[in-house]
């Protein structure tokens, strides 16, 4: 386990399959039953042409990647800022990771799907490097 004091260039990747059961459970946990996540007929009629997962379902993998790489302190004192670039579809396998920023104030982070497409991207900053509110 990292102690949070040693510079690490790349965050440890974390991977998860996002299946329908996971999407359903996340809807229950967050009370987010947007039909685009849980109603196949509704979702099929949208421009997404099918169910997509909650973006934040995958974002927990970023927190896990930071914790595994840098330790708990790096999670408890962090600002995460991300954009959802592409939908995560049922049964996609997503992988979260990150690269230390050249500025040294945190990490550029991303989540890729099994096709190598980036579905979520952003940055995580710690302590004094936090972005202004």
């Amino acid at each position, binding site marked *: 386990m990292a102690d949070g004091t040693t510079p690490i260039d790349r965050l440890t990747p*974390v991977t998860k399959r996002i299946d329908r059961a996971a999407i359903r*459970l996340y809807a229950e946990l967050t009370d*987010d039953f*947007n039909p685009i996540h849980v109603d196949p007929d509704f979702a099929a009629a949208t421009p997404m042409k099918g169910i997509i997962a909650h973006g934040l379902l995958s974002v927990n993998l970023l927190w*896990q990647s930071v*914790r595994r790489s840098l330790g708990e302190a790096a999670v408890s004192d962090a*600002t*995460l800022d991300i954009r*959802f670039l592409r939908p995560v579809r049922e049964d996609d396998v997503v992988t979260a990771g990150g690269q230390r920023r050249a500025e040294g104030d945190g990490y550029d982070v991303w989540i890729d799907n099994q096709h190598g497409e980036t579905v979520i991207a952003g940055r995580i900053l710690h302590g004094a490097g936090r972005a202004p509110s």
Partner: protein
Amino acid sequence: MHLFDTLREGAAFGAQELHLSDALMERWTSLYPDDPPDGRMPAGMIAVASMRAYSSLVVPRPPGNIHGSQRYEMLRRPVVGERLTTRIACAGKELKRDRRWVHFDTETVGEDGTPCFRGRMTILWAA
């Protein structure tokens, strides 16, 4: 129905309580078995507090809204068993290339009133 045209910057939608109960934690770890059982809320559960507040308080919403971006600022990880309160307000809205974007700010405090985390979500509003 909260439509883009009627949402007002600065509008407050109230507060939502979340009990970090053992049962809730068990459900979370059934989805994410690798999250640490250290007696504190896993960081990803910020989303549980913020999205429950959004889902429960910003209603009714047009179907088909899409989450565009999210910012979270972790100040402290609450302890399991704590009761959290999340407030949500409309931080603004903008029309860009015929797309309707709405920004919401959330702030979650613990039982003693001290802030635990803050968030800003940006939603592509369907109507």
